[in-house]
C-alpha cells in the first residue's frame, strides 16, 4: 500500500489499513464466488435448456423438476441443506471430498451454482422457444444437420434474446451471494459483519459495504449494456 494512503488511513478510526484489507479480502471472495458459480451455472444451463425443450417428457420432465425445485425454494434453504447435509453423507469423511467440502466456500459454491443454473436454464429455454420458425426452416432448407443448426442458428439467436434477462440474473446472484456470510465465509457482507461487531458502528460498516455492492452492480449493468449494444448492432437504427 502506498505511503500516503496508509498515512491517511491511520488518521481514521474505523477505516484503518487493517479493516480496508479485510474489506478487500471480502471483495475478492465475493467476486470469486459469484464469478465461478455464474460460469459453471451457465455451462450447465445451455445443455439443460436444450433438454428442457425436447418433446419427450422423460427427457424434459427431470429438468423441469430440477428448475422447479431450485426456483421455488429460498437459496438460503438450499445452502443450509448442502452445507449441513454434506457432512451427513455416510463415509464422506474418509474420502478426499471431505478435504474439499470441509471448507465452507465449496458447499456455498455448489449451492449458488445449482441455483443460478436453474434460473439460467429457464431464461435460455424461453429464448429458445421464441426462435422464429423461419430461421429454423431456412437452416433446414440449407441442409444443416441438427447439431449444425443448433450451433450456427438457434443458439446464437437465443443468446441475443436471453442477454437482457441474464443480466438481471447476474445482478441477482451478486446480491444473493451476501448469504454466504451466514455459513462463516468472510465475503463482503461477512467483512462488514466483522467490522460492525468490532467497532459497534453499524452505519459505517454496512453503508460502506452497500456502496461497494452498488458500484459492482453498476459495473455489471454497464458491461451488459456494452455487450448488448455489440450483439444487437444489426437491430439498431442506421443513422445513429
Amino acid at each position, binding site marked *: 500500500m502506498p505511503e500516503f494512503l496508509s498515512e491517511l488511513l491511520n488518521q481514521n478510526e474505523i477505516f484503518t489499513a487493517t479493516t480496508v484489507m479485510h474489506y478487500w479480502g471480502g471483495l475478492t471472495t465475493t467476486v470469486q464466488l459469484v464469478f465461478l458459480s455464474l460460469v459453471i451455472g451457465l455451462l450447465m444451463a445451455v445443455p439443460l435448456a436444450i433438454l428442457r425443450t425436447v418433446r419427450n417428457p422423460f427427457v424434459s420432465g427431470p429438468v423441469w423438476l430440477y428448475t422447479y425445485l431450485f426456483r421455488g425454494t*429460498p437459496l438460503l*434453504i438450499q445452502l*443450509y441443506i448442502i452445507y*449441513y447435509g454434506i457432512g*451427513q453423507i455416510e463415509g464422506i469423511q474418509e474420502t478426499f471430498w471431505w478435504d474439499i467440502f470441509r471448507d465452507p466456500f465449496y458447499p456455498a459454491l455448489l449451492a449458488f451454482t445449482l441455483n443460478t443454473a436453474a434460473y439460467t436454464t429457464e431464461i435460455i429455454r424461453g429464448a429458445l422457444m421464441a426462435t422464429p420458425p423461419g430461421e429454423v426452416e431456412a437452416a433446414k432448407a440449407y441442409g444443416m444437420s441438427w447439431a449444425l443448426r443448433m450451433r450456427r442458428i438457434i443458439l446464437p439467436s437465443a443468446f441475443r434474446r436471453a442477454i437482457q434477462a441474464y443480466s438481471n440474473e447476474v445482478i441477482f446472484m451478486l*446480491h444473493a451471494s*451476501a448469504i454466504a456470510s451466514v455459513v462463516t465465509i468472510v465475503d463482503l457482507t461477512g467483512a*462488514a459483519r466483522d467490522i460492525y461487531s468490532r467497532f459497534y458502528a453499524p452505519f459505517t460498516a454496512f453503508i460502506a459495504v452497500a456502496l461497494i455492492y452498488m458500484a459492482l*452492480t453498476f459495473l455489471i449493468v454497464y458491461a451488459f449494456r456494452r455487450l448488448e449494444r455489440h450483439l444487437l448492432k444489426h437491430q439498431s437504427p442506421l443513422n445513429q
Partner: protein
Amino acid sequence: MLDFHGYGPELLRGAIVTTELAFAALALALAIGLLGASAKLSGSRSARGVATFYTTVIRGIPDLVMMMLFYYGGQVLMNQLSDYLYYNHGIDFFVQFDPFMSGVLTIGLIFGAYMTETFRGAFLAVPTGQIEAGRAYGMNRLQVFCRIMFPQMLRHALPGIGNNWQVLLKTTALVSVIGLSDMVRIAEQASKAEHAPFKFFIPVAVMYLSLTAITELAIKWLNRRANAGVVGGI
C-alpha cells in the same frame, strides 16, 4: 416417517411467522409501490427525482446487507433519539427494534421499489382516452383514480405483482439470519441439535413450495376476475 423430535409444533408456529411476515411486507410494498409510481408519473420534478433515486439505490444493494443495516443501525438510531427526547424534552419514548419489524421494513422497502416499476408500467397501459372521458363526465381526480385508473391498472399490474410476490416469499427466509424465529431458524436450530439437516430443511423447503403453489392459484383466480370484462382474442 415424519418424526420431528418434538419440534413439530414449533416448526408450524415458525411457518405462521413466515406467512405473517410475508403478508405484512407485501402490504407495505404495495403501498410504497403505489406511492412510488404516482411520484414517478407526477409532474413534479423533485418527486420524480426522489422516486428514481430510491428505485436505483434499492436495486444496487443486497437484501441481507440492507436488513442488517436496518436491524443493527435502526436500534442505534432509536437509542440516540430516545436519549435526545428524554434529556431535552423529558419525553420517555422507546421502541425496541425487533427482527420482525426490521424484516417487514426491509422487505417492504425492497419490494416497494419493484412494485413501483410494476405499477408505473400498469398505469401507463391505461389508455389516456379513458381518463379524458372520465374528466369529461365531470369526475374529479380522485374519482377518476378510483373508478377508472385503479381498476384498469390492476389488470396490467397483477402478473407483475404475482412475480414479485413469489420472490418476496423466498426473501423472507433471510430474516432468520437476524434472529427472527421463523421456520428457517427453527429448522436450523433443530437440525443442529439433532444432527439431522435433511429431516428439518426438506419439510421447510416443501412448505415454501406449497406456499408459492397455493398463492399462484390465488393470483390466477384474481387475474381471471380482473380480466372478466376483457374480450379475449383466443
